[in-house]
């Protein structure tokens, strides 16, 4: 993607440079050629030219349309991660980036990724606006409290690259930086395997699920007072008010924090709110656990080494 952004960028630079040089040269040539020191001299009475006006309105417009279309195409691809990605979660807070890998590793202000594989980072903010900016990969998105954002990229070179916070967030805004460490796949596997005894992210979610006694109601066989969560992620669900909603990260998060906001049809509003009781990281672990509850296609915890082919949420596959 980075090279596509660069190609577009240099194309626009070339086009605009052409016009800048054209106008500058004309101004200089006219100023030199028609220069006079006689204050009473007058210029020729030219009042305008309709063909010229039309030409310099329409031609720049057409060029603009080309730039717009090209840029929109690149933009859509920047917004649309491929099906097969390594998923990473992140939480921004003043003034650090915390990353959670599916396999359970946590890191702060550092992000280890393998070369040549698409990586998708899903993130939110715990306090004010931040912006996750990877200049080397030409991607950026604001971290917004109460909401999940994503960026995705594929690193093509091994090495260390910048991570910046690009949305002003107060005192240490310029200290809210980190690095992406791009590794050989083998080294990455070794890094994944090292450390962490606390289990994968979805295992941590499961632990929380049990500790908070979610499992007493949300039983997998559907006999509990709350709906079973198995196979729910990625599919639409009927709500008590007659509408339906797609079960995605945002919906799961909302249902944990304000359960009665979008009640599933056929259930009573019994669940207490977990608002203020859970950190964003814990919510993410629970979300990931709900995601992992699948009976088909390799249930159980997902790992980074086994890239996720997430359930198609919408039919319009491209």
């Amino acid at each position: 993607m980075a090279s596509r952004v660069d190609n577009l960028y240099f194309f626009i630079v070339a086009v605009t440079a052409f016009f800048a040089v054209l106008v500058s040269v004309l101004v200089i040539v006219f100023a030199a050629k028609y220069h006079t020191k006689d204050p009473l001299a007058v210029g020729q009475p030219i009042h305008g030219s309709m063909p010229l006006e039309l030409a310099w309105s329409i031609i720049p417009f057409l060029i603009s349309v080309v730039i717009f279309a090209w840029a929109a195409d690149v933009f859509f691809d920047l917004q649309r991660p491929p099906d097969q990605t390594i998923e990473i979660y992140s939480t921004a807070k003043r003034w650090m980036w915390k990353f959670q890998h599916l396999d359970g590793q946590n890191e702060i202000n550092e992000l280890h990724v393998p070369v040549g594989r698409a990586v998708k980072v899903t993130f939110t903010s715990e306090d004010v606006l931040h912006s996750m900016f990877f200049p080397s990969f030409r991607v950026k998105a604001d971290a917004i409290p109460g909401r999940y954002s994503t960026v995705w990229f594929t690193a093509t070179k091994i090495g260390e690259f910048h991570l910046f916070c690009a949305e002003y967030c107060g005192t240490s805004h310029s200290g809210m930086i980190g690095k992406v460490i791009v590794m050989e796949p083998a080294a990455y596997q070794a890094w994944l395997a090292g450390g962490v005894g606390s289990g994968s992210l979805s295992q941590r979610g499961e632990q929380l699920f049990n500790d908070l006694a979610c499992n007493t109601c949300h039983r997998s066989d559907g006999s509990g007072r709350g709906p079973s969560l198995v196979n729910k992620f990625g599919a639409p669900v009927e709500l008590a008010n007659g509408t339906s909603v797609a079960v995605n990260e945002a919906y799961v998060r909302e249902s944990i924090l304000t359960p009665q906001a979008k009640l599933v049809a056929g259930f009573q509003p019994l669940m207490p709110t977990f608002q203020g009781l859970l950190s964003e990281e814990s919510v993410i672990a629970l979300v990931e656990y709900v995601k992992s509850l699948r009976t088909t296609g390799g249930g159980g915890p997902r790992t980074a080494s086994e890239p996720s082919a997430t359930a198609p949420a919408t039919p319009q596959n491209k």
Partner: protein
Amino acid sequence: MGDAVAVHGGHGDAHAHHHPDLQHHFDTLEQQHEAATLGMWLFLITEVLFFGGLFLAYMLYRVWYPVAWAEASRELDIVLGAFNTAVLIGSSLTMALAVRAAQTGKQRATVVWILLTMTLGFVFLIVKYFEYKEKFEHHHVPGPNFVFEGPEAGPAQIYFSLYFLMTGLHATHMIIGFFIMAVIAWMAHKKRFTPEWYTPVEITGLYWHFVDIVWIFLFPLLYLVDRAGHFA
């Protein structure tokens, strides 16, 4: 748009019959009147967009939180709201009649109609005061002491924030209107207006009608949300 090429005679002509209320930089009373009314209209345009920002916030959250809007709106008293709407429309009528009285040179009638307008406006504010008081007693004022039962407490607080901002700004406009009307009534009492020159009455009228229009929107937006119980 080419209307403003002032068709007045030369320089001397304008001073021939100099009206005491003609300011030095205008040539005719008519030019002065047109400038003043155009200025007032332009001011009202800025007012439309001033309230427009709040309408935007209102619309966004109403689309997002229909249930909260329905529940919170039910905390308002529809009878008081409708009564106040009638009162304010009535005050608009009396204001229009005040302008008409000024146009036709009836100074005393002008004073009476303006005072009547002020009275109706005052009734409106009294009712508003009791409504606010009730909100305070029920802890429906946004902030740390806000209380609202149920899962919709968050969005309901946004509703009440908008309620107080919108009605508060509206009431502020009315209070400003009182001061202006008081001055105008005094001027009318002093027989300052004539059928040739009643511009201050007219632009005050424009302002007051605008205040009325704002309320014409606020009433259904704030009081009449989902009374039929579609969402909750």
